[in-house]
């Protein structure tokens, strides 16, 4: 086990800003991509539905 406590884990040997700044950015990017994938699918299906109705 590398960490004696959770606070040691978050501190990352004093480099928490750089480590969590990296992983946080990845998390934000992934969430943003998933949201945009869903929105694009939704509007494509809406267009298909409207086409289907008319």
């Amino acid at each position, binding site marked *: *086990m*590398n*960490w004696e406590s959770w606070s040691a*884990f978050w501190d*990352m*040997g*004093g*480099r928490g*800003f*750089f*480590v969590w*700044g*990296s*992983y946080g*950015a*990845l998390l934000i*990017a*992934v969430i943003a*991509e998933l949201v*945009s*994938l869903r929105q*694009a*699918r939704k509007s*494509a*299906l809406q*267009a*298909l*539905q409207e*086409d*289907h109705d008319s």
Partner: protein
Amino acid sequence: MARTEQQSNEKYGGRWFWRYASPAAFFPLAGRIEALCWVLAIVLSAIGLYLGFFVAPTDAQQGEVYRVIFIHVPAAWMAMVIYLAMAFWSLLGLVLGTRLSFMMSHALAPTGAIMAVISLWTGALWGRPTWGTYWVWDARLTSTLILFFLYVGYMALAASFDDKKKGDRASALIALVGAINVPIIYFSVKWWNTLHQGSSVRPGSSSMATTMLTAMLIMTFAFWAYSIAAAMHRLRTGVIEREGKAAWLRDAMKGWLR
């Protein structure tokens, strides 16, 4: 489904490649690949992050900040691999005129651009405590920044034509010409005297501790799975957008339409 498969088998003489070059045949297959890859991405990143944070030891020289490489290296690799994949599908589209090839290339671009941004961002945050600077204009960093601009240029060009076919061809040219940048990125640390370190992982040898390397490779597979899943999802959306009038798609989408 069974009937269309049989029909296309007859039409294309059963050659799988040509069969799946048709959006109608590939649409359901892409859905299955996507589902499998989401599962793989979640499971592999859970294992990789566990190994990376709880099993891999503190680095003797860099301390804890080295743990950024578990996402930095996979993102940098994916940014290059996805660009090459885009160039491959673009070439195939230009040579064979298959519309699915261009759609495949379009589906990859946004994920590739995100990977390039992540590799630049995590590299900067790693560089500050390690090199003492967020950014230097060395060959590796500069060529990666160019890779990001190539992705942006590709997407902008593909979207800028009213005639989708023209957009397909114009953007395919950027994908092809820009592919020359990928070997430049890869070999930059050899060809130029860069601040960026040389490759830690080369075919047949590695300068890293086993658990560190294992964590990084598992994260790499997780990034592969994620990228394939996202690209397949985007591809299917693209098919719905472009083939919306086709009868097969309406049949396939019956359950989705109200």
